[in-house]
Structure formats: structure tokens, C-alpha cells
């Protein structure tokens, strides 16, 4: 399914680079879409994203320090403000013309720092996707993040088709996924998004979920599976158990950020609107973490296969329409960048 283009992801997109907690008054150096980026906060707490490279010497600014609302190179002593402009150099009064580093539009939402690393003027013309549930008190959220040694397109293809869940991890998988005939897969397309829904007949919830929330492990409820590719950097999925009192819902948020063609940063979040509390979270977390780690392992294996033996020509089935449409959108967005 994946064709390994040299660059298979657009720069013009909102990508999560770090959690809000990771960015403070110590410069944080990172990489995304093949670019070095330094993240830091002004004294007022605003996140700043600059190119992580001193304009004077090839030395990362992230190895320097902050001085008020300036970042100072740890080698040359050049100081830059939040706009990337050099505002002080050690050896002369006047700052040389053109001394600046690229600055990127950064924003925070859902406990994540999102940065636009492409054409700056487009940052204001491509609205970011809202993820209010990540900070809404009605939803309890836990999660983690790591780097997966696979191209971001591999991760997109994984989220686009959850047929693999029952195969990779029968324990986490809702029993209904292995039960037999599946309901129709309804796919909705827009210019740059793809979403899918399946309405499942009544079936029990997974044993680990029933156990943790004290529900009956055999009682059957209709369920709804939904997934949405909302941008090159974001999937938002949900699974509803339609119990009589009102849906018990899991929301699965995946912010995926290409570091380079072989490495992707993956922020995963599991949110729920039922059974709040640390005890249930402590019961759920290892189950989801183990599942996502298994997926990571599989994706890294597939990336190795592609790297060693080439992309191959994979046979598609009709239900792969989501995967194929996501691929189409990604390729078109890359082509738009000229």
C-alpha cells in the first residue's frame, strides 16, 4: 500500500511537535518534516518556534539559553527575539542586516504544541482542527508519545483500516470485531478529509473494560466505530457503546508528525466520558499502551521490509477505500507544494 516517496508528507500542515509540558524556559530542540526546530516560552508563557540553528554558525540554538524573551546561542552569543530577529551580537553595537532565523507560527491546543513549518502565510489560511475533548473536563484523557521508525504514511494506513486490530491484539479488540459478518463501512469524503463509520449490532464490551468499570461482561449493546483523517497530522477516532443511559464513548486521538521519511513522532491519547477516576485510568492505560506498542512494532517491521525489499505492489480490497483516499490526499497536498 505504501509507496516510499522521498518526501511523502506536506510541510503545509499543523503538526504536533511536543506536549505543552515539555516546552518551558529551557529551550527544547526537536526535528519535524526534515527541519530542526527549537521550542521555548517567553516570560509571558507564549510558545515560540524558531529554526534550531544560529544564523552565525551551524550550532543549534537549543543548546543555548534563554535571557528574558530572547534566546542566546550557546556558541556565538548572538541573541534572537521571538520573531527570530537577531537583536544583539557580542562584538558590535549594530546588529548586521539580515541576521535572523526563520520563525514558525506555533499554537497550543489539547495539551500539545502545534507548529506550521510550511509557507508562513498559509498558517492563517488553513484553520487548525479543534480537539476540545482533550482538555474538556467531561472527558478523562491519558496517553503517551514516542517515535516510530516508519514513514508517517504507514501510520495513516494503519489508522485508516482497523481490520488489523482483531488480528494484532484479540484482547483489546471489542468482541464484535471478530464476530462474523460486518456491517457496511460508510465512508464520507471531503476535499482534504476522510471519515468512516460502522454501526455494529449489539455485542458485549471487551472483558477488560467491563471488569474495570464493574459492568456486565455479557450484556450486549449496539456499538459504533468511527475514524476520521482530519489533516496530515491528525486522526480522531471514537468507539461508542450505546448503553441505555447514554453512550459510553472512547475517543482516540492520534497526532502524527513526520520527523523524516523514516521516522514519525506519535502522540496518542485515549479519552473517555464514563467511569472517571485514577483507578480506572490505571487499569486502562497498560492495555492501550501495550496495544499501541504492538502496532508500533508491526509498523517498524513493515518499514524495514519496504526499505530492504521495496514497496511492492499491494492488492487492495474495496474496504481499502479509506486508505487509498488518504494516500490520494497526502500526495495531492505534497504536489501542491511545487
Amino acid at each position, binding site marked *: 500500500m505504501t509507496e516510499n516517496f522521498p518526501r511523502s508528507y506536506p510541510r503545509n500542515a499543523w503538526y504536533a511537535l511536543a506536549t505543552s509540558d515539555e516546552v518551558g524556559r529551557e529551550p527544547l530542540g526537536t526535528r519535524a518534516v526534515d527541519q530542526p526546530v527549537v521550542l521555548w516560552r517567553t516570560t509571558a508563557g507564549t510558545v515560540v518556534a524558531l529554526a534550531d540553528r544560529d544564523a552565525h554558525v551551524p550550532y543549534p540554538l537549543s543548546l543555548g539559553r534563554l535571557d528574558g524573551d530572547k534566546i542566546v546561542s550557546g556558541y556565538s552569543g548572538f541573541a534572537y527575539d521571538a520573531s527570530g530577529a537577531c537583536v544583539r551580537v557580542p562584538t558590535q553595537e549594530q546588529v548586521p542586516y539580515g541576521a535572523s532565523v526563520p520563525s514558525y507560527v506555533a499554537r497550543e491546543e489539547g495539551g500539545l504544541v502545534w507548529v506550521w513549518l510550511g509557507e508562513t*502565510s*498559509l498558517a492563517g489560511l488553513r484553520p487548525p482542527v479543534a480537539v476540545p475533548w482533550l482538555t474538556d473536563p467531561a472527558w478523562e484523557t491519558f496517553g503517551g508519545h514516542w517515535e516510530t521508525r516508519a514513514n508517517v504514511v504507514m501510520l495513516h494506513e494503519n489508522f485508516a483500516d482497523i481490520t488489523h486490530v482483531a488480528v494484532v491484539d484479540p484482547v483489546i479488540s471489542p468482541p464484535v470485531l471478530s464476530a462474523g459478518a460486518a456491517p457496511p463501512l460508510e465512508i464520507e*469524503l*471531503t*476535499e*482534504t478529509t476522510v471519515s468512516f463509520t460502522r454501526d455494529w449490532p449489539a455485542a458485549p464490551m471487551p472483558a477488560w473494560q467491563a471488569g474495570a468499570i464493574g459492568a456486565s461482561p455479557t450484556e450486549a449493546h449496539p456499538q459504533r466505530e468511527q475514524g476520521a483523517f482530519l489533516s496530515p497530522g491528525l486522526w480522531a477516532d471514537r468507539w461508542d457503546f450505546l448503553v441505555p443511559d447514554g453512550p459510553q464513548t472512547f475517543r482516540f486521538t492520534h497526532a502524527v508528525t513526520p520527523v523524516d521519511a523514516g521516522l514519525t513522532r506519535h502522540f496518542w491519547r485515549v479519552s473517555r466520558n464514563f467511569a472517571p477516576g485514577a483507578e480506572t485510568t490505571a487499569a486502562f492505560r497498560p492495555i492501550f499502551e501495550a496495544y499501541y506498542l504492538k502496532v508500533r512494532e508491526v509498523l517498524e517491521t513493515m518499514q524495514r521490509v519496504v526499505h530492504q525489499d521495496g514497496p511492492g505492489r499491494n492488492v487492495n480490497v*474495496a474496504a481499502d477505500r479509506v486508505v487509498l483516499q488518504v494516500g490520494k490526499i497526502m500526495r495531492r497536498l505534497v504536489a*501542491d*507544494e*511545487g
Partner: protein
Amino acid sequence: MPTQTIVREYEAELEVAEARVAADDVVALTLRHPDGADLPPWTPGAHIDVILGEDQLVRQYSLCGSPADQGQWRVGVLKAPDSRGGSVAVHELCPGARVRVRGPRNHFPFVASKSYLFVAGGIGITPLLPMIAEAEAAGAQWRLVYGGRSRASMAFVDELESYGDRVTLMPQDEAGLPDLPGLLGEPLADTLVYTCGPTGLLDAMETNCSAWPTGSLHLERFSAREADTTGDTPFELVLQQSGLTLTVPADKSIFEVCKEAGVSVVGSCLEGVCGTCETEIVEGEGDHRDSVLNEDEQEANETMMICVSRCRGDRLTLDL
């Protein structure tokens, strides 16, 4: 675990927030979701279907507002003498009226470039407006030549005023027709040409850009090219994903045959203009009759519009 796959586009009933006369025979409609929900995101060049009247006529209109504005969509509609009556119905929409829309989709994407030449004819200005806004915001070099019957017939001139002399207005009754050979005779380096308007303009643009590097000219057609269907023959259609082999008779389209076989396909204009039904070719030579792909794309034979295009040989395999 057999799974039936149903594919459709976003569809909603929107409310007309504003219906403004933008020029003679042109109305600018602003559409919002009645629940105040955000509308799907889009990029310049995108269009939507508007479904009108009792007859459920489907018409495509370019989005000409700002992609930053998620709460509303704006389209500009020319009231054309149209035997099917679609645009007349649009002109009868008042604020508060409800109208069904589908999409958005985009077969006219705006590609990054240092320099652009925009050429608009009449209502063809609509897809170019958001492109111009982005070119300007990015600091690109650009120029617009905007032709129309008369100044009074040309819409959105007020919005273009702020761009000063980058815009050349050419009402035909004042300035005659744009001198395309003069404008395009010498290919400009690193410049993309974007054009939209009546068929005559688009055909002339294609002719005048023939010396330009491949991929320089980007255009979108609002109306279909005439196709010669005499001599059409049946052929075998293999649907790779579905594992089906069907026969396409001389008098049915691939699109119709797929639908009849229960294969989920999306389509809209059904005359090869909107691009919705674009499908990948796995094997076989497509007989391209659409107005979406340019000559190079048709020759590359990677995709085809299944609502109008057929097969050159006896057998065609599609990724469906």
C-alpha cells in the same frame, strides 16, 4: 468478514445567510450550517455541488470566500440561459432559504509558485479569487487579466480594487478581448498560469500556452466537451478490488454499470467535468472523454473519469 463499502461525499442542508447581487446576472450566495457548525475545510480551486429545486438539479460552483472562514461558504453564480434551469433556481434563493450541498472537492488545486499569471473570463473569476488572496499573502509575483462583457457584468471587481495595478480589467465593450498571444507568446520563467472562464477562453488559453513548459497552465472547465459517441462498442470491465468482471454495453457508462452491480462509486456532474468519479486505471487503455485531465494526464493513462470515458481495447481493469 465481508464488508460492504458505501462511499459518499459530505452532504448537508445549508442556510442562505446572504444573497447579494454581485453584478448583472451574478448573485453571490453565502451559505452557513443552520446549527452553526463548522463546514469542511477546503483550499483554493475547490467547488461544491448545489442541489436545486424539485428536479434535484445538481450544479457545481467554485468556493470563492476564504478558507480561513470555517463557518461559511461563498459561491458566485451566473444566471445563464440554461435549458435545465439550475442557475435560475439559484437566483431565486433568499436569505433563510435552505439548499442542499455536497463536497467540497478540488480538481483545480493551487500550486505554490514564485510567480503567477491569472486570466479570468466572466464568472471564471470565482475560483481565482481565493488563489489571488493566497498569492498575495505569500508575497508571490502575480498579475490578473480579467475580461468580461461589460464592467457591469463583471463580479467582485470591488474586492480586486485593493490590489491596484496587478489587476487589469478588460470589459469587452471598452477594451476588446484580451490579447492572449501578446500575453502568453513568451513563456515566463517560474510562472504558473491559472485560468477559468467560458470554453472559448479556455481553448484559446490552451492553444496560446502550447509553448510553455508542461504543467504551467492550470484550468478548470465548467462545461463539458462534446464527445462523439457514435461507434461506441461494449467492453469487459474488471474491478480489481471488488473481484468482479462486468460488461459495459455501448449505451451505458462505466459509472452506471458499476452502480448497477452494487459497487459504491461517487459521481456528480456525470458529464466529465467535476472530477468526482476519477478512478485509477490498473490495466488497459482508457478512451478519455472528460474535461478534467489535460493531454499529458490522459496520455499517462493513470486515472479516468468513469462517467464519460470508455476503453480503447476490449478490456479495462480499474482499482475499484
